[in-house]
């Protein structure tokens, strides 16, 4: 069963360096972040072995949030081979996120 990856400053770059990844920047106090939490969990299962579904707790990993200029959460970024290729701000439906992943997976 697929599980999302909890990213930290130590493994952030290496984890995203290869393949397609989705990164959900969130925090425990954020309502819309909590709203999409079960969506992220389902995506982690659906894309197991195909794409890396990741989360960054911006409360604990402030350096990453600053590096990527995060000013609103949830922000969902898409990476391909280490490069940020797309981002969306605000709660999204599972379908909207899956469509973006599918497009990147080709």
């Amino acid at each position, binding site marked *: 069963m697929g599980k999302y990856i909890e990213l930290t400053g130590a493994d952030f770059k290496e984890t995203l360096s290869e393949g397609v990844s989705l990164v959900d920047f969130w925090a425990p*106090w954020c309502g819309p972040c909590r*709203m999409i*939490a079960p969506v992220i969990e389902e995506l982690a299962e659906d894309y197991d072995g195909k794409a890396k579904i990741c989360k960054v707790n911006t409360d604990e990993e402030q350096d990453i949030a600053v590096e990527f*200029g995060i*000013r609103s959460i949830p922000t969902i970024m898409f990476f391909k081979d280490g490069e940020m290729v797309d981002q969306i701000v605000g709660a999204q439906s599972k379908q*909207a996120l899956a469509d973006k992943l599918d497009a990147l997976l080709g």
Partner: protein
Amino acid sequence: MAILDCAIIGGGPAGLTAGLYTTRGGLENVVMFEKGMPGGQITNSSEIENYPGVTGEITGMDLMTPWPAQCSKFGLVHEMVNVTRVSKNGDLFTIHKEDGTTTDAHSVIIGTGSSPRRAGFTGEDAYFGRGVSTCATCDGFFYKGKDVAVIGGGDTALEEALYLAKICNKVYLVHRRDTFRSAPNTVKRVKNTENIELVLNSVPDEVYGDNMGVTGLRVKKSDGTTREIEVPGVFIFVGNDVNNQTLIQEDGSFLCDMNEQGQVIVDISMRTSVAGLFAAGDMRIAAPKQVISAAGDGAVAALQAISYVDELLN
């Protein structure tokens, strides 16, 4: 899939209460469609002072957390999918979902609520998520010790200005009038908060910035002069627009009668112009836009839906 007794669209206070009342009241096959975790827009709110019986410092998220479990105890099923359209053919409703599947239902309670309105000034959309925000509890954290501006003069604007004043160095409260249409107690608290500066008789003209995001806001005063406010964050609370997209049919018309503001016309029992379709919460006409009234609507709609389904099937 079997035909649902009742389909509930939306998982805020209205939808959840409708779910509680329909299932507890005896409808057996009830699904609440909500694209993510239920709770609704109120989970963005930093403080709830006016939900009866709930006292102490409580956030919108705290208030809503126990609701879904209470509903599932009575058999409410949550389907985590976005509904794109509700249509009706004969006596049967069809719920069209974003994943391309459909579900049929004998009755529908729609409570898709509202979303924060954009104020409509230059730069607002371009910098949304990069300094412009509509959720202080979500994004206030990123402005710890910094200066921010809040746009608006209603309850939400004032409550969130108070919340931001605790985190930020300074809050500029930009309001187009010189009086507030907020609860007197809240106005008093705002006026007594040292690090809130009232920028009255002023409207936002432009938010500007660089490639990292917002760096400032220009406001226009009613006398025609302008003022530059150097802030990295601008929070906008200027009301809400109803989410009525799911009621739009393939030919562009609405499933039921709406008013000019796009709100669903209902009677005192939350009945719409279409038999078996009920609307509850922020999206109905004359909605007070309060958790308590949305929940009340949900209960009223649920009791009506139970009678409707009973008569239809028996």
